[in-house]
């Protein structure tokens, strides 16, 4: 054990990593969710209501939108989780006892993120205006609630978990297999001695690397096809956006993961170490990317780490394309981050890859 530092590191590192991630980063009750407000009412009750909503801790108002379309766009891009729409004449209608409606549009691609916030709203609305509804307005508070709350769970109205999980699996499966397969492929050559032979032949390192990566791109696409077909036929996952766009984006993501695998293989001394490293990489990917747990529920530092992982961006893109019908313009922000990651990982791998045995 003393001579196998990596195994030792894993034995201590994995529990520590899990403790930190589960203990500090994972939160099943996400709060402070970014929200947009569409406030068309000028009366005091509208504003009171917004304050109350913000004070619940579940919502954080990050922007004000002018139109419903603007709100929808912000939702599609994932900039906000909710759009809260307080209609014109809200205060007036409230005072008239007409039970005005407020509309809350939620990005429900990940039901885990939104459900708690939504249920808090229902409770909140009956109490929020208690101070305002006193004296002559007392009668309003007693009825079935002064306000009519309408929630639109967009993109996943029936709140089906599979709609979120299956597209997410696409990224998770690719991350796991692509990284591990390439890391193994190259360390195996070194372990079995065939690398020595390969290096004694007139091949350039780039050729060897490309030769290792290309077949696995195909493997990646086979996996993608499998998951998409199963997702469609078994789980009925909606596929609103362009599949061509999805497959194009997937290419970059696969390359990024293969590049990590190559890099690992240049560091690991044998296949076992390569597996350990792949696993070590996989763990934060599962936990911090927003696959298993709500990304917005995590503290800032965990979100920052998550932002560094290509899986995080890929998940947003896949869910965006499949569930929201996003186009290229909506996914480009996440796309270039994956591309950047791929370039850095490839450059690092190519630099570390040794053409000689020393």
């Amino acid at each position, binding site marked *: 054990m003393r001579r196998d530092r990596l195994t030792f590191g894993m034995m201590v590192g994995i529990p520590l990593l899990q403790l930190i991630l589960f203990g500090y980063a994972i939160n099943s009750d996400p709060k402070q969710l970014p929200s947009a407000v569409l406030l068309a009412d000028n009366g005091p009750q509208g504003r009171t209501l917004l304050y109350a909503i913000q004070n619940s801790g579940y919502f954080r108002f990050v922007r004000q939108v002018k139109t419903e379309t603007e709100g929808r766009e912000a939702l599609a891009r994932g900039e906000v989780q909710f759009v809260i729409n307080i209609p014109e004449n809200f205060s007036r209608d409230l005072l008239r006892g007409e039970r005005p409606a407020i509309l809350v549009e939620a990005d429900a691609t990940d039901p885990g993120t939104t459900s708690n916030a939504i249920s808090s709203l229902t409770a909140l609305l009956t109490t929020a205006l208690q101070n305002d509804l006193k004296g002559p307005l007392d009668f309003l508070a007693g009825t079935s609630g002064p306000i009519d709350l309408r929630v639109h769970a967009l993109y996943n109205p029936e709140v089906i978990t599979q709609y979120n999980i299956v597209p997410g699996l696409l990224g998770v499966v690719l991350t796991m297999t692509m990284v591990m397969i390439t890391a193994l492929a190259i360390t195996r050559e070194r372990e079995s001695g065939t690398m020595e*032979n390969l290096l*004694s*032949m007139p091949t350039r390192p780039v050729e060897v690397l490309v030769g290792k990566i290309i077949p696995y791109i195909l493997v990646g696409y086979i996996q993608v096809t499998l998951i998409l077909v199963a997702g469609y036929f078994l789980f009925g996952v909606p596929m609103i956006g362009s599949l061509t766009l999805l497959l194009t984006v997937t290419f970059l993501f696969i390359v990024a993961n293969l590049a990590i695998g190559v890099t690992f293989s240049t560091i690991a001394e044998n296949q076992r170490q390569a597996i350990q490293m792949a696993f070590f990489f996989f763990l934060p990917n599962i936990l911090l990317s927003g696959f298993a747990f709500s990304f917005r529920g995590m503290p800032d530092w965990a979100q920052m780490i998550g932002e560094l992982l290509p899986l995080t961006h890929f998940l947003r893109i896949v869910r965006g394309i499949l569930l929201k019908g996003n186009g290229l313009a909506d996914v480009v922000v996440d796309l270039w981050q994956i591309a950047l990651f791929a370039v850095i990982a490839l450059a690092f791998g190519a630099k570390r890859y040794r053409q000689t045995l020393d």
Partner: protein
Amino acid sequence: MTDELAIDVHGMTKRFGQLTAVNHIDLQVRKGEICGFLGPNGSGKTTFIRMLCGLLRADEGSGSCLGHNVITESEAIKRQVGYMTQRFSFYEDLTIYENLDFVARMYSTKNRHEIVSASVERLGLKERQRQLAGELSGGWKQRLALAACLIHDPKLLLLDEPTAGVDPQARRDFWDQIHRLAGQGLTFLIATHYMDEAERCHRLAFILNGNLLTQGTVSEVAKQTRLATWSVSGPNLVELAERLRRLPDVEQAAAFGSALHVSGVDQAKLEVAIAPFRTDEYKWSRAESGLEDIFIHLMAKAKGRSSS
């Protein structure tokens, strides 16, 4: 054999941290020559061979290999050199044919199919060409490896302990093939432990702890060392050997079958030293110093030098 040099390198040095694995070795091998590279385990044979074919970067040294600069033109050298690794290093999950075909592709050989088929046929593996390389016995793996090294028609073959773990018949066949190829103008550098194999080489180079001790033909090496050897047979050779070894002028006393080889550097002193033991009981005769005697002598001498 011509006078043209296939390998002509000077001062080749490789260090791994504190350890100097190869220390300023000069080596010249003529075209069509079979050069045996002798040395104990860990003496730097493999490191030297790897530097020649560009697998390791030399820390110091210069010279040419097949007319190309050994330091800067390793790409060109790789194209004309066949390197057979110490361990079987082809793909065990590919068939014999696929392995050869892969090598042919790597060298972008023309008429690939004909060349690979011809190679399979020469190997005598036509019926088994679809067999996985991993299923082959040691002897056949070695033949396959040699065939693979020859696919791209190299001018120089670097063989690193090619016959380790191979039965005598296969070794004999192997060496017959080496001599046949050398006759066609191929140059060989063969690292080996086996003295009988060393004797089948045109030239020898002894290496120990990264230093080249001596090089030359078998008889040149024997002459250089001036080692005198007597052979003795009779009863209780083990006890005799013990007593002989204690004498300062006897360097070695080693059993060879039913006889004991006794050798020393100074012939006259050796004769004086053994005189008391030349009784009727024992049968003494002058013997030719074998390569093994020389090899062990060189090692002992080098060790004495480094410790004194």
